[in-house]
C-alpha cells in the first residue's frame, strides 16, 4: 500500500470542507472493508484518506410513520442487523444484514460504504431497490436526494462526485399489505453473492397486485430493477404461473459480467430462479400481512 496523508474530520461540515479542498486527490474511508483491499492491491493510490468511520453524527437509525426510515451512512451492518426499529418495520433489511459477509466485516463495515464502493454483487442495494429507497448526497453548498436506482453509474462507480459525501439512506414507509423478501445465491456462508434478488409485492383489497418491485444484484455492472417483469404483476392476481413467466422476463433484463466464479449465461439462469423464489416468499408474506 502506498503512503497517504490521513485526515479524520470531527464533523460532517468539516468533512465536506476537506473534500472540497482535496477533491480527486482524496478518498473517503468508512469501515474500509473493501477500500483497504483496493489500496493493498495498488488499484488506487490516493494522496489523502479522509476517515469518517468515527463520525458519530452519521451513526443513527431513525424512524417515523411519515418519513419512514433514515439510516446514517456510518451505521455499521451489525447495528442495522440488530436494530429493533428495523426488525419491526423493515425486517428484510435485518435478514439481509444477518447474512452479509461475515460477523467480523459486519461489525466494522458500514451500510453507506457498501453502497458507495458500488460492487454490483453488494447485498444492500437489491432490497433498497425493492423499497424505492433514496440516498442523501451532500457537498459544502447543500445536499441532493437521489434514488438508489439512479445511484449507480457503472461497475464500482456512483453519482457521488469528488467533493460529495453520502450522508443518509432513506426508505419510505412500507404500505400495508406488503411482503418483501431478499434471497441470494453463493457458494458458502460469508462469500459475496453471485446473484441476489429482492421482491416486494403490495396487494390491493381484492388480493391482486397493486405494486411490484424487483431489485437484482450481480447481474449487471450496477444493481438494477426488473422493470418489465414488475409491470407484468401490476393489477394481476399473482399466481405461480405468472411468477414463473415474470422471472423469465426478469432474467432477460439482465446483462451479467462473467467472472471466475460464474459465466454470464449461468448468472442469467440463476437470477431467474432467485427472482422466482423471492417472489413466492414475498407473496406469502404479503398475504400474511393482508390477513
Amino acid at each position, binding site marked *: 500500500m502506498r503512503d497517504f*496523508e490521513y485526515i479524520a474530520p470531527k464533523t460532517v461540515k468539516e468533512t465536506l470542507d476537506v473534500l472540497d479542498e482535496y477533491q480527486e486527490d482524496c478518498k473517503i474511508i468508512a469501515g474500509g472493508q473493501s477500500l*483497504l483491499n483496493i489500496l493493498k492491491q495498488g488499484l488506487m493510490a490516493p494522496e489523502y484518506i479522509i476517515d469518517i468511520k*468515527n463520525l458519530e453524527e452519521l451513526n443513527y437509525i431513525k424512524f417515523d410513520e411519515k418519513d419512514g426510515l433514515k439510516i446514517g451512512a456510518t451505521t455499521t451492518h451489525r447495528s442495522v442487523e440488530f436494530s429493533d426499529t428495523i426488525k419491526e418495520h423493515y425486517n428484510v433489511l435485518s435478514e439481509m444484514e444477518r447474512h452479509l*459477509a*461475515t*460477523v*467480523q*466485516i459486519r*461489525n*466494522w463495515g458500514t451500510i453507506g460504504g457498501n453502497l458507495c464502493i458500488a460492487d454490483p454483487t453488494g447485498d444492500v442495494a437489491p432490497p433498497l431497490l425493492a423499497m424505492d429507497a433514496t440516498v442523501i448526497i451532500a457537498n459544502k453548498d447543500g445536499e441532493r436526494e437521489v434514488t438508489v436506482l439512479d445511484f449507480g453509474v457503472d461497475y464500482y462507480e456512483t453519482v457521488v462526485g469528488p467533493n460529495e459525501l453520502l450522508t443518509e439512506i432513506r426508505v419510505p414507509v412500507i404500505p400495508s399489505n406488503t411482503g418483501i423478501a431478499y434471497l441470494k445465491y453463493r457458494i458458502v456462508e460469508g462469500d459475496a453473492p453471485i446473484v441476489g434478488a429482492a421482491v416486494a409485492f403490495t396487494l390491493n383489497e381484492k388480493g391482486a397486485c397493486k405494486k411490484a418491485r424487483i431489485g437484482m444484484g450481480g447481474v449487471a455492472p450496477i444493481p438494477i430493477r426488473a422493470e418489465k417483469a414488475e409491470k407484468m404483476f401490476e393489477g394481476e392476481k399473482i399466481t405461480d404461473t405468472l411468477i414463473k413467466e415474470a422471472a423469465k422476463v426478469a432474467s432477460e433484463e439482465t446483462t451479467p459480467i462473467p467472472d471466475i466464479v460464474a459465466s454470464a449465461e449461468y448468472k442469467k439462469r440463476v437470477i431467474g430462479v432467485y427472482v422466482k423464489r423471492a417472489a413466492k416468499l414475498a407473496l406469502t408474506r404479503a398475504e400474511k400481512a393482508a390477513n
Partner: protein
Amino acid sequence: MKKILNVTINGTPYEIAIKPKTTLVEVLRNELNLTGTKRSCNAGGCSSCSVLVDGKVVNSCSVLALQVDGKEVTTIEGIADGAKLHPLQQAFLEHGAYQCGYCTPGMIIAGKALLDENPNPTKQEVKEAIAGNLCRCTGYVRIVDAILATAKKLQEEAK
C-alpha cells in the same frame, strides 16, 4: 508522516507513532510483538486475524490502526486470567479443536465474541458466528463442540 495512535490493548494503554497506512494487525504483530494474532489472507477473507475492538470481533487486517484511536482492543494474549486459561482455550485443548493451530486464535476470539453476546447459542448460531473463520485443516466439528461445551460450562457455573 507518522501519526500518534493512543490505544488500550489487553488493558495496557499504548502511545505509538505509526504511518497512517498501518493496519491494526501490523501494529499488534510488528510494533508490539503480539504475534498470537495471525495474519493470513490479509484481505478480510479468512478471519485468522480476529480481535475484539470495544468487545466486537473484527478482522485486524482490515482495520486501519488509526481508526481504533481511543478504543480498547483485546487479542488472544489478553483473554487468559494470568496462568489460568480462558474457558474457551481450555475447551479447545480438551476437545482437540486444534490441528495446525493457525486459525485457532481467530476461532477463540470469534467464539468469545459470540458467547459475550449470546451466552446460550444453538449449534447453528455457533456455525454462523465462525462462518468467516476458515480452518483449512477443515476441523470444524471439534471447534463447534468446544464452543458449545464452553457455553454449557459457563451457564452451569453461573447458576
